[in-house]
């Protein structure tokens, strides 16, 4: 009770201070919270950006494709490296080293290769999502008791059956964690790509509003993008909870 009161006090204090400071300073630069509300209404009523829905859908589609590719690639590569000892010991350290590179250095090359359209954003979202999923699958396969795999194999289970009946339930816990991180990173990848250079999508709108000094519109666009991001995360957490219930 008191903690939530404190939290509320902090939140409203910050907003109030922001409002006062922004009005005292330059309202165009510091964007008082009260100025955001009308912009948000204009935005959602499709007055300031009439084609908002197209951009939201494009960004959502890019995220979906990038994430689907990242899951397919990550689970595939992770299982291959986790299932084969020599392959795992050879390539897992190389993957880990590549993971230590700040991924944005690849983006200019991707932009050069895939152009300014959706493909380069999908490629970058895939790249960001791929690593955590692969590493989670790799860690997951190592958690599974190898005797279980041996027993299943010696009783004649096919590789697919071993995967579905032994590996998957054994590593589900780690896997869903990796899948959720992967989704968050794929989302970030797509949006970073759009902000750094694109023709359409939420990142482009944000850049447009910022470039024209329409700062209140910019904040409203950021809020809409956050709704998109939070929705994706809530969906992921529902799936995660479902999966956890299934394992226990």
């Amino acid at each position: 009770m008191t903690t939530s009161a404190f939290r509320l006090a902090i939140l409203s204090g910050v907003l109030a201070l922001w409002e006062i400071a922004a009005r005292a300073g330059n309202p165009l630069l510091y964007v008082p919270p009260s100025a955001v509300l009308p912009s948000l209404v204009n935005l959602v009523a499709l007055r300031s950006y009439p084609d908002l829905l197209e951009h939201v859908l494009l960004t959502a589609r890019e995220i979906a494709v990038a994430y689907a590719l990242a899951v397919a690639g990550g689970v595939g590569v992770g299982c291959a490296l986790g299932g084969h000892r020599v392959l795992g010991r050879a390539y897992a350290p190389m993957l880990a080293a590549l993971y230590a590179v700040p991924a944005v250095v690849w983006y200019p090359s991707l932009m050069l290769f895939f152009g300014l359209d959706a493909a380069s954003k999908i490629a970058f979202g895939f790249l960001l999502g791929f690593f955590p999923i692969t590493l989670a699958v790799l860690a997951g396969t190592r958690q599974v008791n190898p005797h279980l795999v041996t027993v299943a194999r010696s009783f004649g289970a096919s590789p697919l059956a071993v995967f579905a009946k032994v590996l998957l339930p054994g590593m589900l816990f780690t896997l869903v964690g990796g899948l959720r991180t992967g989704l968050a990173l794929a989302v970030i990848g797509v949006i970073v790509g759009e902000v750094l250079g694109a023709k359409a999508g939420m990142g482009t709108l944000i850049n447009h509003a910022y470039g024209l000094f329409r700062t209140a519109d910019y904040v409203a666009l950021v809020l809409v993008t956050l709704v998109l991001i939070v929705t994706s995360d809530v969906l992921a957490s529902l799936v995660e909870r479902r999966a956890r219930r299934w394992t226990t």
Partner: protein
Amino acid sequence: MSEARRIRLLQVASVLAVLAVWEASARAGWVDPLFVAPPSVVARAFGAIGGAALIALGDTLAKTAVAYTLAVGLGVPAGLMIGSVRAVHDVVHPFVVALYGIPKILVLPWIVLLLGFGTAPAVAYGAIHGLFPILVLVIGGVRDVDPALITVARSYGARPWQIYWKVILPASVPSVLASLRLGIVFCLLGVLIVEMFAGVRGMGHVLNALANGFQAAQLFAATALVSAASIGFVLALDALNEKLSHWRG
């Protein structure tokens, strides 16, 4: 042949195979050399961009160093504090998690608007980028300290500063070290993003300019340079990690 050597051989062979396929497909014209330069051309491009790229890399690393110092200097003490004082933790933790979860790219245009182009936004954004992962890791590490250790220390009459110095700090060393390792990649990432978005100097700016100029060979060479520097840092921090874990015993 021992397994370690077989693995090393496999690694070298696969890197060579990738380079060979890449070279062959560029030469055979399967990919447009305008967009994908073959490795032999990239190797020569190192010479062409060498000096300028090293200066730009130095510029980026200097900004990263300042951002990293800020992020660690703020993040580690604040994390220790939030993690160890229960009342503060209960109130502040949801804010930290929420701020950690928000993609920082969304506030980048605003930071550039406030701080202009150049060094200041890069340092600020790099520091913000590194701060939250460090905070979250350190808080988690302090919270995971076995409460029995603290109870025992307290019942033997340890003073608060002794509990910090003798129990909480040594017990949270692994998570602090992990946060230091993670933080540097995040700071470098933040600095590079700003340089690409609104840079006038530095490696991010160079990469972007090369991409916009369709200079694929130089672009790949510059990308390799940044990647190598980053991997070097992380390996160095790993080595340090190894050393310090002996100290903890």
